[in-house]
């Protein structure tokens, strides 16, 4: 049995677990339904977070800046208070603990691994404090349910989500032939597109530059997307108290009705709002069927779960599953798992957060705070923020990649002297604080027997280690870093 499979597609096995008799069935069964949330602490919905985020933006921009325009010191004090009141420092660690709890203690670690993958594929870059408020619920409420549907649904749901529309500025886009642009022109002003979202929909989310799209394709894609915005219809000049933190609507007045030509296919919109609204879905439906999109995402999945440079044989299997199932994500995910099982001897250097979660799960580290409630009045206590410090130290705060292409999946980007030091240094710090004291010989033996095939080789390796550093050695070992 290739026990590395449990780390390849999950986070390894904890000492209280037993080795599943049919690993493939164990993994596939986890991706077939939306897992019930294991987390029993505080949790907030996307709708509630938009209230918090909206309140933060409105109070800061419209109230505090005006009220304290003559006193920077008073402004800073008031803003700090506002941050406490809106949970500015609280929600990111809360989302991280929930994410980590579902990975470590939840019933479906394999589902969580796929959720981490798609969350990174549809990354929300570090911008406008979205990592503080919105990204956690966006993963749970937008991406997770769509992972049980078709790839077309997933791309569409993400594309029109508040998080992505805001992150990629689509509300700033006005179709050049839209009624709104006409109004602009009568006032001598020009209205034009914001290409950011249209471009990334092609480049990052679907077909990739391998499709050979042109600037005209980007422009037409942006035209199709024009009108999808987080703006209250007929809001006029009245400032909404939640600023841009309002649900996404399709507003035809801003929409360019085409015709559009995207990747060689002509799209002509019928008359009426419904047809205008439906055009985006129509185009996405075609995009996810293109060979470029199928190959790009299939390869990315194999790269993430199996090995850095997957063979054609591996990638083609996933491509076939995609084509045969017409993009059914359960079938695609299932094929990735089959290939990961078949080729579980191939190694992949794990991203920092994945390695961390595997270490916590396997070691049974006392990791989660007893209580994650918050008073919304003072700074969040250090113990409730520990998760963020650890992730920062490892160089990967999962909810805030710096760019919209997310975190890299390549070894060269993660394997440097300093990155390696951070992993070993964190283990060493935990050991020095006595947090790994429970990892005695029998505990380590159990971890090894559950999670590795080369049991005697690892045990021989650990026999050389002195000073009670066996646990540091095991989790810094090449067998743990590369899975």
């Amino acid at each position: 049995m290739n026990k590395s499979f449990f780390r390849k597609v999950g986070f390894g096995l904890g000492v209280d677990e037993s080795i599943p008799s049919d690993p493939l069935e164990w993994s596939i069964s986890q991706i077939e339904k939306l897992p019930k949330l294991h987390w029993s602490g505080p949790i907030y919905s996307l709708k509630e977070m938009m209230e918090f985020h909206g309140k933060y933006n409105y109070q800061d921009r419209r109230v505090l800046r005006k009220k304290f325009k003559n006193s920077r010191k008073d402004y800073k004090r008031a803003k700090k208070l506002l941050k406490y009141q809106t949970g500015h420092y609280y929600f990111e660690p809360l989302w991280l603990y929930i994410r980590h709890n579902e990975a470590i203690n939840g019933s479906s670690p394999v589902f969580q691994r796929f959720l981490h993958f798609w969350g990174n594929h549809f990354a929300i870059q570090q911008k406008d404090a979205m990592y503080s408020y919105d990204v956690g619920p966006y993963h749970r409420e937008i991406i997770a349910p769509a992972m049980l549907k078709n790839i077309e649904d997933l791309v569409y749901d993400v594309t029109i989500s508040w998080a992505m529309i805001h992150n990629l500025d689509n509300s700033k886009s006005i179709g050049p032939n839209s009624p709104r642009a006409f109004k602009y022109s009568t006032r001598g002003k020009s209205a034009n597109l914001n290409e950011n979202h249209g471009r990334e929909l092609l480049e990052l989310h679907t077909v990739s530059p391998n499709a050979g799209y042109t600037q005209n394709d980007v422009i037409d894609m942006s035209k199709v997307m024009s009108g999808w915005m987080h703006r209250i219809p007929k809001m006029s000049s009245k400032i909404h108290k939640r600023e841009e933190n309002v649900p996404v609507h399709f507003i035809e007045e801003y929409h360019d009705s085409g015709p559009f030509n995207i990747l060689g296919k002509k799209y002509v919109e019928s008359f009426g709002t419904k047809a205008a609204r439906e055009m985006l879905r129509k185009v996405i439906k075609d995009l996810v069927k293109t060979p470029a999109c199928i190959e790009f995402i299939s390869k990315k999945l194999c790269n993430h779960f199996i090995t850095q440079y997957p063979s054609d044989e591996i990638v083609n299997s996933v491509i076939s599953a995609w084509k045969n199932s017409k993009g059914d994500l359960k079938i695609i995910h299932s094929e990735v798992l089959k290939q990961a099982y078949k080729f579980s001897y191939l190694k992949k250097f794990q991203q920092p957060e994945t390695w961390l979660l595997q270490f916590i799960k396997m070691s049974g580290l006392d990791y989660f705070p007893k209580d994650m409630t918050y008073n919304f009045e003072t700074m969040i206590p250090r113990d409730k923020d520990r998760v963020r410090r650890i992730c920062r130290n490892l160089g990967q705060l999962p909810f805030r990649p710096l760019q919209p292409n997310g975190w890299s999946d390549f070894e060269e980007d993660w394997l440097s002297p300093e990155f390696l030091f951070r992993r070993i240094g964190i283990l060493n710090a935990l050991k020095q604080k006595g947090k790994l004291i429970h990892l005695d010989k029998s505990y380590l033996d159990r971890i090894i027997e559950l999670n590795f095939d080369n049991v005697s080789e690892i045990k021989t390796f650990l026999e050389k280690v002195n000073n009670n550093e066996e646990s540091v050695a095991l989790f810094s070992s090449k067998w743990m870093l590369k899975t």
Partner: protein
Amino acid sequence: MKINRRQFTLGSTTLLLSGMLPLKVNSSMIENKKNLVIIMLRGAMDGLTSVPYIHDNILEKVRPDIVVKKLLDLNSDFSLHPKLSGFHKLWKSNEASIVHATNIPYTGRSHFDGQNLMESGGTIPYKLKTGWLGRGIDVAGLEGLSISLPMPLLLRGKANQDNFFPSKLSMPTRNLVDILKHHYNDEPLLKKSFDKLISRPISMTKAPNNKNLKTLARIAGSELKKINGPRVAVFEVFGFDTHAAQGGADGEHGQKLKQVDYTFDVLKKTLGNTFKNTLIITLTEFGRTLVQNNGYGTEHGYGTSILLGGGLVKKSQVYADWPGIKNKNLFEGRDLNSTLDARSVYCSAMSVCFDTDFQLLNKEVFPDKKLNDLTNILFKV
């Protein structure tokens, strides 16, 4: 300058130092030690915002809401963004110049392909696995140290580069270090990283646990100043992708330029006399469109400008084969055109700072094209 905390969280701005001199030094080496600082501007810096063309009021017409006012004077054709006031001081003392209407040979307008190429120096995205600066360091026979958590593509070369970033963590015991050293033997990348890690000098564990730009720029300055210190530093400033709220003088783009200016300024102050042997150059993936969009921003474009500062700059000048910004002059009818392969500037800069023949660097670092040797035009040789 007031530092906005949000803009300086870990990873948003990083600093890398490379090119350690051999420990044995003599007086001529001290005299000849030249420093190269690269500031990577991620997100596509708008050359027409940083260094606006001031003729014919074209920018006022096409960018009514974001055109920058109260510009700093450069010459009869170009002005400077007011947030670049530190850079402007260098200009006035003949220690700053600008290359305009330039870019790497890439017209695809994708950030990620563009950034890959600006770092690798190639022409096909993701084809090269090393960076042009790393290859240049290899050719010059130097070793590298970078101060950052990741090792950016720009600095990757054949040589065994090190990277380091301040933290409070420590290594395990010598016994375990020895065991791991042997253990990683059959994993080349792991071994390479671990060997570098355990050969670090003790001084590298004493850096302050502070990662804002101010501290990093000071670290860079004080390290570059050392006789046997590094010869190359790399900064990264993120956030130039201003599709929205680009703004005028005080907008988002201006705030980012202020960070760039701050880097020039802190380095000038920290380097002291060493500034005369230093060259600071910006690098970005492409420029931005001429016309503003509805979000008071601009879209991805092509040609942009490069800012150069330091005592190795020949004189204050805007060096450009200016293509014009009337409709007929624009690249694909929308962008400032690029009339100079920016790699000529970088190859010339390395030639000057590494005291290495331009043709050799061209052949080894940018083998796909014969570049223009600009060393005599742009730099003190």
